[in-house]
């Protein structure tokens, strides 16, 4: 009788330990899943902040920014935009730095012109597709846009444009 009771108690202990272990494993799995999710979310948030900051930082690149007698101004040079477009094409430096993005600048004032700027159409165009690296597959797409000051060196005049940055992930 005693040995049966002992067996029962042993079985009960084993069952309790077993359930405890299952609960512990379940807890750990949940914990790591949440931690992983948190880290991923933080990474995405940081990337999003970096991406949103690009409406300020991208036009400040020396490759685009206009300058007068070596003094930098808060505008982008329309001639430099064309130069950048050809330079960034299939360029690994910019691909590594910018990643999966699509950056375009449109002219809004003095006139809207949807013609894409190329060397041949430089005097009659209003859209500069600066960087284009759209992945074949992506989960989400973020878009930020902001007005931008455009400088036309040939006319020594300023216009208003809009920079549109699309980020794919």
């Amino acid at each position, binding site marked *: 009788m005693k040995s049966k009771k002992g067996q029962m108690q042993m079985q009960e202990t084993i069952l309790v330990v077993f359930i405890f272990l299952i609960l512990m494993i379940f807890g750990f799995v949940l914990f790591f899943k*949440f931690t992983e999710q948190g880290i991923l979310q933080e990474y995405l*948030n940081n990337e999003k902040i970096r991406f949103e900051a690009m409406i300020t930082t991208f036009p400040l690149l020396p490759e685009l920014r206009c300058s007068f007698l070596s003094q930098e101004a808060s505008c982008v040079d329309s001639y430099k935009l064309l130069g950048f477009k050809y330079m960034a094409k299939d360029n690994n430096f910019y691909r590594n730095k910018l990643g999966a993005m699509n950056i375009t600048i449109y002219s809004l004032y003095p006139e809207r012109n949807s013609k894409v700027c190329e060397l041949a159409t430089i005097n009659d165009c209003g859209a500069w597709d600066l960087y284009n690296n759209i992945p074949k597959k992506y989960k989400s797409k973020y878009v930020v846009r*902001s*007005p931008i000051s455009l400088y036309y060196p040939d006319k020594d005049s*300023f216009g*208003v444009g809009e920079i549109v940055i699309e980020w794919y992930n």
Partner: protein
Amino acid sequence: MKTKKCQMEIMGLMVIVVLLVIGALFYVKFVVLQPKTEGASDIIGVQAYNLMNSILNVKVCGNNVSIRNAIGVCKNNGDLCGENACNYIEKELEGIIKVSMPKDYSEYGFIAGKPLQNSCEEAFLEVKEGDCKYGVASPRYINVEYDYCIVLKLCRKNIK
């Protein structure tokens, strides 16, 4: 003996309850209390400032005077292109802002005044479209040469 068994069972239950509580706490910490980043108004502020900067660079009056300088002339009650500088600038600004407003915005307020402490007061030039009471204002631009400041406020289509 029976009491001991009961005690053990209660202890087991306690362990399960404690584990469930810890699980729930983790859930609350990592899922419910996840901070939500609200960066939208920052972006609108940047957009407003960029638009203001772009407008100030534009040259008017036969590509001779920048709006930045023209506002200074307006402040000193001068003339521009054969008419009162303030009236001239007002018309030009309306035209430029109308075509340059970022998507999703319909109302704006462009105010030039005296730079006092943290705001632009005693406005001498005010170009507006709609009420635009609860929009996002750009950081202040202060022109030291002519001693004036400018704030551009943008309002979304559905928010007034």
